[in-house]
């Protein structure tokens, strides 16, 4: 993989330089109300999130609704502007004078959304949709359409059969293949997959996951794979980042996170996963209640209101994302946990049901 990586003429910093690094990303949404439509509250959707994506890897982002995983994706694509924070793409700051423009970044970074139908223009044929972005970026019409047909074939749809069809004439799985083809049309290096298989049936999901694996090695892609589905994230990712209420609570290599989760939230999340084994059913609730409202989240550690280990210090200040407190470290990519209490991090209580 890394050998092929060097062939990419767009590579700037070599394999050691992260393809994407994000520092202190923050996005608050105002909640307006009252007579004068004044701001009455703030949703802290993404609060001080930092991470990096290495060349050629798949970073999985997992978390429940409202944890900020999709907002993070939209901020990366600049579909909305962050309140603060920096995004560096292969060494170049995005949107700064010294770096690259947002448009230049989007040539190299593309996104696939959950809803395959609303992602496509209903009045455009599949080939038109795929050829649209390259044409906007100056590719001649004929060339763009030829390439669209090649891409259709590469995502497993016969161009003769599908190039002239409209979105409503395809199944959900087929439409999602078209969305993937369209994302690849500009030959991106990083693809953000935001719940890309969540709306598909099991058999369609498996087909699309296999396709994503094939395309990754074929085009030397790097993936940011966002999902609420713990099993799918484990299958796809090299590293995993767990989010809760707008913050990162734990990050590390997939084996570390799944076999030895440290954060009490991560452990509860995994323990909530249905077991697939009728003889080892879940008997105790790992957590009670719903995640709190991201409007006015708890002070300090945001998980403390549902955490069995919480102490006074947890309410005082937010825990930094750092190496586990009992000093145990993993080889390779670091395993980081945002938790004040070493005893809360003791890795236990998760039955490793496959």
């Amino acid at each position, binding site marked *: 993989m890394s050998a092929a990586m060097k062939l990419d003429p767009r590579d700037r910093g070599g394999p050691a330089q992260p393809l994407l690094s994000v520092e202190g990303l923050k996005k608050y949404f105002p909640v307006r109300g009252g007579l004068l439509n004044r701001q009455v509250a703030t949703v802290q959707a993404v609060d001080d999130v930092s991470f990096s994506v290495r060349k050629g890897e798949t970073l999985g982002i997992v978390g429940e609704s409202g944890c900020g995983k999709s907002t993070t994706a939209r901020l990366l694509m600049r579909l909305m502007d962050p309140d603060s924070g920096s995004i560096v793409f292969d060494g170049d700051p995005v949107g700064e004078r010294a770096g690259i423009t947002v448009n230049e970044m989007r040539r190299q970074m593309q996104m696939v959304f959950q809803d395959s139908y609303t992602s496509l223009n209903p009045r455009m044929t599949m080939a038109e949709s795929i050829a649209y972005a390259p044409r906007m970026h100056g590719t001649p019409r004929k060339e763009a359409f030829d390439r669209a047909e090649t891409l259709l074939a590469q995502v497993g749809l016969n161009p003769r059969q599908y190039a002239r069809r409209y979105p409503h004439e395809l199944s959900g799985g087929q439409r999602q293949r078209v969305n993937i083809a369209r994302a690849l049309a500009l030959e991106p290096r990083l693809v953000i997959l935001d719940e890309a298989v969540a709306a598909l*049936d099991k058999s369609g999901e498996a087909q699309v*996951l296999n396709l994503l694996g094939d395309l990754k090695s074929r085009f030397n892609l790097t993936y940011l794979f966002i999902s609420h589905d713990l099993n*799918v994230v484990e299958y796809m990712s090299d590293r995993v980042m767990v989010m809760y209420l707008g913050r990162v609570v734990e990050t590390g290599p997939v084996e570390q996170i799944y076999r030895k989760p440290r954060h009490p939230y991560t452990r509860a999340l995994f323990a909530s996963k249905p077991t*697939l084994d009728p003889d080892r059913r879940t008997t105790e609730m790992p957590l009670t209640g719903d995640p709190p409202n991201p409007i006015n989240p708890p002070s300090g550690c945001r998980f403390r209101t549902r955490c069995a280990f919480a102490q006074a210090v947890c309410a005082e200040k937010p825990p930094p994302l750092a190496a586990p407190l009992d000093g145990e470290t993993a080889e390779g990519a670091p395993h980081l946990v945002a938790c004040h209490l070493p005893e809360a991090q003791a890795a236990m209580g998760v039955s490793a049901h496959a």
Partner: protein
Amino acid sequence: MPDIGLAPAPTDTPVLQVDDLTVRFKRRNTDVAAVNGATFALRRGETLTILGESGSGKSVSLKALMGLLPGYAQIQGKIWLDGKEILGLPPAELAKLRGGAISMIFQEPMAALDPVYTIGEQIAETIVQHEGVDHRTAMLRARGLLERVKIPSPERRLKNYPHEMSGGMRQRAMIALALACSPSVLLADEPTTALDVTVQIQVLLLLRQLQQELGMAIVFVTHDVGVAAEISDRIAVMYAGRFVESGTTREIMRDPRHPYTQGLLASTVHGAMRGAKLETIPGTPPNLASLPPGCAFAPRCRYAIDACRAGDVPVVTGPTGAMVRCVRAAETVAA
């Protein structure tokens, strides 16, 4: 012995029996065969899961039981509830059963609850309608129900409107509403699909506990194999409007015999598959407006032979009552 949701000793007479249920949607140019002969029986305290992908007919089957399909749906077959035939009952009689002896919970509580009435009023109204008690008594019962589904501070929550509650709380409120008149059968249409995983397990555990306490039978519809394994006593796998296989949860999960069930389980992603290619079922489900003759799964089945496409598929029933609808049932077990 931990509570694993085993039902109290079931009595022998089924509370719900469905015999050869078919549902067709006939309109001017189309004739969609949504359910093509579903047969099952359910005893007190038992949970049957209908497992299938979208368009397999699982939700339509539930709506047919509940009498919720539009007028142009042609429903045939027999449905007995507590020994009484309910298909074809006049609307007024059916309305007495709905929310009474048989009730239903849905995927979207926001759509199932009335946004302009408080939770307390909605539950009380159901109780007044069905049992003719006064409003005050009904409200007291409503409070008890909210406690039963473990909604914290039930007194205060009675006065909440649906939009004032979180997703998990709304789902609990809808369960309380469905249980208001102690139904003998609860129909559950993907009730945990829209929930987060930490909330989903809470609702599944709650349903298991309520069933132990109240003894109702549950027909649970889901596409999620993991959820089915957590909640069911028996699983029936539906494909193109037919049950292709049914058996105890253990039989289906450990030893699936129909090629479709095998494919469905094999394509269910879990961590142990990391790095390996996922097994997939090729192709897509058939068009219900023009089903192929013979086995509807044959076009996607790697074991298909000419006999599969020829005509009616024999049903093989094992000694434990497990059923598989496959021409090659005897061979695929070995495969």
